[in-house]
């Protein structure tokens, strides 16, 4: 297979197993990119004044994936130099300090990747059909 131009790709995964930062960042690395920006969302030990041991997430999986694809499309429109985007979202039980979401974006220069990651996580929280139980 031709190594060539490294076609931009979106990597979207919803899963119940532990997420891996190494795995997600490796998905977006590219010889054409000098920047990989990463966001990790983890379970915090308090919520609305109450102690938290774990959070449990429920999703409408097919639509969540569709919404994340839309986010990727929007990212590419706003920041055309973005190369690869990876969004891994963990569903089910996520204990305190473990990751419920990892977002990675690569781009030739750092500004776009950094801005795109912020956009991704904010829009994901606002529009993806996922609920804390």
């Amino acid at each position, binding site marked *: 297979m031709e190594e060539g131009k490294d076609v931009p790709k979106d990597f979207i995964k919803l899963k119940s197993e532990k997420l891996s930062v190494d795995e997600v960042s490796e998905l977006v690395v590219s010889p054409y990119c000098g920047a990989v920006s990463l966001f990790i969302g983890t379970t915090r030990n308090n919520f609305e004044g109450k102690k938290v041991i774990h*959070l449990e997430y429920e999703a409408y999986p097919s639509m969540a994936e569709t919404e994340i694809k839309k986010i990727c499309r929007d990212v590419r429109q706003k920041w055309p130099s973005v190369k690869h985007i990876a969004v891994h979202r963990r569903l089910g039980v996520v204990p305190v300090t473990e990751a419920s979401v990892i977002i990675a974006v690569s781009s030739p220069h750092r500004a776009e990747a950094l801005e795109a990651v912020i956009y991704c996580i904010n829009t*994901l*929280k606002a529009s*993806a*059909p996922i609920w*804390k139980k």
Partner: protein
Amino acid sequence: QVSVLYFARSVELAGLRCETLSVPRQITSLQLWEEIVKVHPRLAVIRDQVVFAVRQEYVLIGDQLLVLQPGDEVAIIPPISGG
């Protein structure tokens, strides 16, 4: 005949996660809501908080006219939390 999917709080109120419902092919989203509440009256309490997702697109409960096909997915979407 559409598939109705329930999520989050609506699962507790309806008592189930999914079912098939017979509804008119053309119906406003408000009428669709009313059909669903007929079957599960306890859902009425979340009327002001929910939206629909019809064929995986968000639809507000109101005047929007829906053209439904057999087997379409309609989901009850309470306020999302946790993104």
